[in-house]
C-alpha cells in the first residue's frame, strides 16, 4: 500500500490572534503545530501501514518552516515527505493548494492507494482542500470519517453527517478526511525523532512540478482581517438560588427575548 497524508502547519489552537501593522494576522511568537485534524490523518496512515504494510508519504504546501511539521510526521512514523514551497504560493487560496497537490500526486508521486487528510484546518477553517483534491484527482471520497477499515481493495468508513452518522463503502484509490475520534494520535518517540532527521524530505518548487505562477493565481483574495467585536461581561446575578433563577428567566424573557 502506498498511503498519502496531506497536512498543513497551523497556529497552535491556544494562540491569541493579533493583527499586525500591515492589517494581516501576525505570526510573531506564535507556536506552530501540525493541524490537529491532519494528525488524525497521519496517524491513520501510519496505522494502515502497520497493518497492511507499505509506506506513508506526507505532503504539504507551505514555507520553509513547514519542514518542521513534516519532520514531526516523519518522527511519528511516516516514511517520506514532500514540501511544495514557492514564492508564488505565499497567500495561496485553497484552490491553488489543491492544484499543486494534485499535480504532485498525479505526475510525480503517483500510484497511491489511499489519501488521508484532516477534515479541515483550524486556521482558515475552509474545509476545502480535501474535496478540491479529490475532484482534481477524480477520486471517490469519504469526509469527516470517525472510523475506517481497509480490506480487499476497499475502505469501509463511518462518517459524521448532520444529526447522525453514515457508513460508506468506497473502492480504492480514494480520499478520506479525518474527524477527531478516528484514532488516538501517538506522540513521536525519541528514536522516532532521531530517525526522522535522516528520512527523505524533498522540497519542490512550482517549476519542479511543471506549474507556473499563473496556474496557482488566487481566485479568492483576503481583502482584510479584523478581530471580532469583543464580548463584554454582562451582569452577574446574585442572591439565593430561587431569586437568581427567577431573575434569569425574567431577563431571558424580557431583555433577551429568547424564551
Amino acid at each position: 500500500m502506498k498511503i498519502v497524508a496531506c497536512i498543513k502547519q497551523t497556529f497552535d489552537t491556544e494562540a491569541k490572534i493579533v493583527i499586525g501593522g500591515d492589517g494581516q494576522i501576525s505570526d510573531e511568537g506564535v507556536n506552530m503545530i501540525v493541524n490537529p485534524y491532519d494528525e488524525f490523518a497521519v496517524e491513520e496512515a501510519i496505522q494502515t501501514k502497520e497493518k497492511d504494510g507499505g509506506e506513508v508519504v506526507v505532503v504539504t504546501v507551505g514555507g520553509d518552516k513547514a519542514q518542521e511539521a513534516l519532520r514531526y510526521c516523519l518522527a511519528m512514523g511516516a516514511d517520506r515527505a514532500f514540501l511544495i514551497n514557492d514564492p508564488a504560493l505565499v497567500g495561496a487560496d485553497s484552490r491553488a493548494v489543491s492544484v499543486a497537490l494534485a499535480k504532485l500526486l498525479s505526475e510525480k508521486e503517483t500510484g497511491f492507494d489511499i489519501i488521508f487528510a484532516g477534515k479541515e484546518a483550524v486556521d482558515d477553517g475552509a474545509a476545502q482542500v480535501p474535496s478540491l483534491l479529490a475532484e482534481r484527482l477524480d477520486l471517490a471520497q469519504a469526509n469527516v470519517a470517525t472510523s475506517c477499515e481497509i480490506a480487499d481493495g476497499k475502505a469501509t468508513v463511518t462518517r459524521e453527517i448532520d444529526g447522525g452518522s453514515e457508513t460508506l463503502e468506497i473502492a480504492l484509490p480514494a480520499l478520506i478526511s479525518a474527524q477527531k475520534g478516528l484514532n488516538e494520535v501517538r506522540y513521536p518517540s525519541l528514536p522516532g525523532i532521531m530517525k526522522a532527521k535522516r528520512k527523505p524530505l524533498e522540497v519542490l518548487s512550482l517549476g519542479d512540478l511543471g506549474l507556473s505562477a499563473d496556474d496557482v493565481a488566487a481566485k479568492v483574495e483576503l481583502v482584510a482581517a479584523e478581530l471580532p467585536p469583543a464580548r463584554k461581561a454582562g451582569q452577574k446575578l446574585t442572591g439565593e438560588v430561587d431569586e437568581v433563577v427567577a431573575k434569569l428567566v425574567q431577563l431571558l424573557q424580557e431583555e433577551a427575548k429568547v424564551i
Partner: protein
Amino acid sequence: MSIVVCVEQRDRDIRKITFEALSEGKRLAVASGKTLKALLIGSGVAHLADDLKKYGVDEVAVVDNEALAVYTVESYAAVLAAYVAQETPALVLLGHSAVGKELAPRVAAKADCGLVTDCIEVTSADGDFLFKHPIYAGKAIGSYKIAGPVRMATLRPNVFAIEESDGAAGAAVDFAPEIPAAKVTVTGSEMASGDRPELTEADVICSGGRGLGGPEGFKLIEDLADALGAAVGSSRAAVDAGWREHAAQVGQTGKVVSPNLYVASGISGAIQHLAGMGSSKFIVGINKDEEANIFNVADYGIEGDLNKVIPALIEKLKELQ
C-alpha cells in the same frame, strides 16, 4: 445574470439552512439586480418546488432522478456543476452543512471557480460581492473577494434571517444532466434518536463541561435542554474525559455554533471553547468558580452550584409552560 441556491433536502424535507440561503440570495439578487434561481436535486422531490416559491425564487430547476435517491457527493456535485456550466451564475450559495461543506468545493474544482466557505455575511457592491468568513474559529474575521465570473459560497447556519418575499413566478423547469455511476455505496445510516434539534441548527444550546463532575452530570444538561427545546453541547474537556461523544463538542476543534441562547454550565470558558460559541446572541454562564473566564463573555452569569441552580431553573421553566 443569476444567483443560484442549491437546495438541501433530506428524506424529502427541505432543510432550514436552504430557507436561510434563499432569503439571503433574494436580498443579494435585489441589491445586485439579478434573478434568483434554485436547484432542487433528489428523487421524488419535484413537489418540493412549491415550497421554495414564497422566498421570491424566479425559477426552480428540478433534477428528479432515481439515481439521486441516496446522496453521494460525487453524483450531486456532477448535477450542480452541470447546472453551473449551463447557467454561469454570478453567485452560487449552499448551506455550510455536512453536505454543503463537501459539495461546494467538489463543484468549485469542476467549475474551477473561487469559493468562500462558512460565510456570516455577504454584501453586494459595484457588481461584486464581499464575503465575511470567521477564521481561527472566530478569533478573527476575514473579508474576501472572489474573482468571477462564477463565485461560490457556503453560509453558516442560523446566521442569515429567513424572510419570505412575493412577486416572483417561481416556475419549475426540468433539468436532466448526465449522472455518473456512484463510486461510493452508502450501506447504512444512524440518526441521533429523540426530538432534540441538531447542534448547528439549534436556536438554544445547553452545554456542559468538566464542572459536571462526570458523565452522569449530563443528565441534568439534557433535562434543561428538554425544558428549553435545546440541543446538547459539550466542552472539549468533557469529550476528552469520555463523558460525551465528539459530535457534541463545541469549540475550535469541534462545532462552531451561533444560537440565540447558549447556556454554559460547568464550563470554564477556555479560548478554544469561546471560539466555537462566541457568536451566540446571548450567553448564560453557570459556574461555581467566580474567576471562571466564561463570566467575561456571559450576558448573564450565575456563580453557584449547578446541581442546585439547574434543577431550580428547570422547575421555573416548567411553571411557565
